[in-house]
């Protein structure tokens, strides 16, 4: 292993049918079994592989990829020497149309995460899943769940109904700061309200996957320009699975136009790029693969250094990055250690 303390900032623990039943109160368990989830709306982009998973990540137990803790240990945590893994549970719970149902499901997911993952495997940490389109309900769940030391961040998905800087979402960020937690924004989400692009719905999954970076860009702009970091100077935000090659050009573009249009946003006391440098972290996967790998070094330099970059694999998804092969560039040992574990340990308070 290139580093002593490998932290994987993006592992997906998957639910299986019935997994939440023990954690749902009767009223919502009945609803769940009778009416259930109400579709994703407009997300008709079959992935490159079943369940978007690596073909070799299907456990022998018959559980789906990511649902088998023992297999996760065997195939991933042990062979790669993962010191800590951060679980980001992708579930439609967070964006169910019925807010009460969404809140009940999210609470159940979090209790399931504690019981089935955090309590069973000391290397794992997790994000608190919340019904983010109802900020008050989301804040309540953050306040409830944050007590468990295994939760290291609040988990949101990047495709939201409105840009996350909008006031309606502020209680979520306040709750995160109140509980000393960063907010992770992860690839995915959406519920048919906004098309994937400013010009509607593209035709192909390859476009859907590539378009995710633009959703991340819009969120960064919103959080910065709405002044969320002026209101919440302790807020830290992690961009998970969005790539990061686009970040320098976005910082430059925001700065340039902010200079001209500063009188529209008098609440911003510094250039947008300063807020980005101070408040955002990014995970590496899906890592950029320029024709010359050394071009990544210029990206790091344009980002202001390597102290906000955190390695991730996205296990068990198909666009997985292997810790031994991703970032095949000459990095100074300190930078490599930062990226592969140090930065995450510092951000998430891991020891």
């Amino acid at each position: 292993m290139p580093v002593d303390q490998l932290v994987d900032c993006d592992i997906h623990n998957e639910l299986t049918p019935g997994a939440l039943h023990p954690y749902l109160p009767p009223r919502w368990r009945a609803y769940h079994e009778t009416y259930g989830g109400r579709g994703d709306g407009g997300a008709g982009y079959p992935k490159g592989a079943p369940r978007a998973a690596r073909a070799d990540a299907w456990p022998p137990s018959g559980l789906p990829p990511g649902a088998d803790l023992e297999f996760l240990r065997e195939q991933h945590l042990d062979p790669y020497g993962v010191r800590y893994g951060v679980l980001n549970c992708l579930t439609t719970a967070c964006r169910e149309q019925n807010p009460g149902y969404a809140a009940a499901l999210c609470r159940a997911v979090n209790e399931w995460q504690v019981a089935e993952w955090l309590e069973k495997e000391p290397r794992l940490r997790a994000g608190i899943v919340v019904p983010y389109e109802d900020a008050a309900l989301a804040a309540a769940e953050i306040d409830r769940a944050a007590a468990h030391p295994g939760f290291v961040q609040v988990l949101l998905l990047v495709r939201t109904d409105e840009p996350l800087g909008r006031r309606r979402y502020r209680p979520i960020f306040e709750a995160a700061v109140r509980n000393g937690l960063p907010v992770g924004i992860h690839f995915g989400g959406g519920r048919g309200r906004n098309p994937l692009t400013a010009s509607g719905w593209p035709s192909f999954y390859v476009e859907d996957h590539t378009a995710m970076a633009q959703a991340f860009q819009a969120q960064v702009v919103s959080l910065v320009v709405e002044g969320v970091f002026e209101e919440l100077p302790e807020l830290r935000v992690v961009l998970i699975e969005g790539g990061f090659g686009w970040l320098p050009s976005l910082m430059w573009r925001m700065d340039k136009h902010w200079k001209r249009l500063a009188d529209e946003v008098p609440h911003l006391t510094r250039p947008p790029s300063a807020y980005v440098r101070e408040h955002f972290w990014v995970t590496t996967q899906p890592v950029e693969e320029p024709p010359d790998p050394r071009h990544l070094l210029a990206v790091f330099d344009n980002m202001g250094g390597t102290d906000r970059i955190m390695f991730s694999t996205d296990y068990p998804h198909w666009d997985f990055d292997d810790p031994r092969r991703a970032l095949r560039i000459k990095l100074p040992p300190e930078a490599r250690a930062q990226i592969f574990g140090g930065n995450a340990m510092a951000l998430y308070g891991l020891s």
Partner: protein
Amino acid sequence: MAEYARPADWPDVPLVDTDVHITPRSLAALTPYLPARWRDYVRESGVASLESDLYPPRSPLSAIPGARPADGPPASDPELLRTQLLDPWRLDVAVTHCIYGIDGIHNPDWADAMARALNDWQHAEWLAGEPRLRGSVVVAAQDPARAAAEIDRVGDRPEFVQVLLPVRMRAPLGTRAFWPIYAAAERHGLALAVYAGGASGNPITPVGSPSYYLEEYVGLSQAFQAQVVSLVCEGVPVRFPALTVVLVESGFTWLPPLMWRLDKNWKGLRREVPWVDRLPSEMIRASFRLTAQPLDAPPDEPARLLEVLDRLGSDRMLMFATDYPHHQFDDPAHAAPAGLSAAAMARFLGGNALATYRLEAMSGAR
């Protein structure tokens, strides 16, 4: 602001400004070009203006000092265009486009009538009277077949060099429904210009509507990225190999990382779009061009911008532009990347535009 003119130390090579806005003084200026039925419709329905709201009239970005004529919005006076832009910059050619917002009209017939009027208006009142000007064919993509017919109507006039569509559209630009427009453009040797703007009815960003104008303007680069992806993945460069797509006022420093991302995804997901038979970045280099403003890069670190240009992998893509009348730079010296070789600078200032557009041979020795 420094004097708005061609910097004295720029080489004496052809200079083509590829992003110049023109606009009618008012809706009334267009009515002589509308058939009676639509003239009365406009008057009786009380439509005031279709001016794009992307440039709030008094926003600092919308107009350089002195660009507001007494009797109209910025970029509505041909004589002011001469005295403020064409003459001081010693432009060989200015490629103009009118982004009057017909794309937001839901009535396809009215939209088509307005497109025709805009083309006749700009030809009569701008292009015919000034040999340095070229124009963009306005079309209503609401009905692609009629848009193609409009391109066929005016496309052979040498004053037109491209067909104009907004970056924020009703559907992604690669959508096959729009292909009659591209076929017509290719047929006439016109480029396809995608401009910053559009009022399609879709949310401005992929995650809904932002609060601030600053977000909206910055967010245009996301819309351009998605359109590049759409045009490539849907195979527009494959089906129309002679069609050049010009991204106007898009920024470009986001393009190298997009090329990396799309290339990487294509390698694993190629089967979904099997007509994309080579690296997307190769298709982009071959078929896309970009106007230079806004130059989204740190102004006091020219090396970083040069690095980005190097990552584009081609010095044929970027074309000089002022984005007149928008206030994109305070010092004209910053309108070109610093540190370009002589050959690259000549391409940037005019060579790439001459290769992109069907411009008549330049007069005079250069």
